[in-house]
């Protein structure tokens, strides 16, 4: 039976390689036919900004990597509203048009629906 697994990414994109490792784990997980989703919150919302130019620091841009998720049929992508608001980021600055924006209360519901949380 499929399990509901939510990846939660909470760190800014380049200071640590943990956000990249989270994506690698998510893409690897996509081969195993489970019900996968990912939530960006806290400083993790910075990963979602458009037009990142990370090659200047010898990194791959998250704005280039993240759209790949849909090729792996990972379409449940969430962002925490209050995390965006605190950082003065608006939705039209994000790489995904169709990203689902959830406030803290809705995130509580989302978490409660999961079989496992994978925190990064």
């Amino acid at each position, binding site marked *: 039976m499929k*399990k509901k697994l939510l990846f939660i990414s909470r760190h800014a994109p380049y200071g640590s*390689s943990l956000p990249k490792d989270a994506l690698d*784990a998510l893409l*690897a*997980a996509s*081969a*195993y036919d*489970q019900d996968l989703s990912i939530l960006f919150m806290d400083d993790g919302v910075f990963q979602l900004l458009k037009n990142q130019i990370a090659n200047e620091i010898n990194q791959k841009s998250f704005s280039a990597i993240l759209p790949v998720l849909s090729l792996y049929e990972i379409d449940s992508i969430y962002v925490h509203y209050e995390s965006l608001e605190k950082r003065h980021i608006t939705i039209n600055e994000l790489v995904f048009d169709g990203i689902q924006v959830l406030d803290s209360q809705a995130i509580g519901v989302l978490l409660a629906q999961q079989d496992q*949380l*994978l925190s990064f």
Partner: protein
Amino acid sequence: MIFSLAIYAAPYSSQAPDTAYKFATALLANNHKIYRIFFYHDAIHHASALTTPQQDEPNFTQQWQSLAKTHKIDLVVCIAAALKRGLLNSQEANRYNKPAANLAEGFEISGLGQLLDAAVNSDRFITFGS
């Protein structure tokens, strides 16, 4: 209950590995089972056979080894995270023509699929060092 742990924190850099170890021993003391401990990101250094802490510090490598031996727990290290940080078993050392292998006994190098497998096949999946 069946638990799996994911550890992302390097030894000796933060409190997370010690918390993870104490959590693991508390689980086993309360008759829970641990299906797998998965070492990813900077935590791969837990699996180095060359770890040489000072005498008044914990030896995480030995602690995990003895826990795994006593309770038959799978200790799995992510291959991609391990190789780029210089942690290799003898097979990978041969494959990449490196002068030595340093994976500690009791640990196994495998793919990220093992992380997902642990999440799917455990009642609880707990992360340390995220």
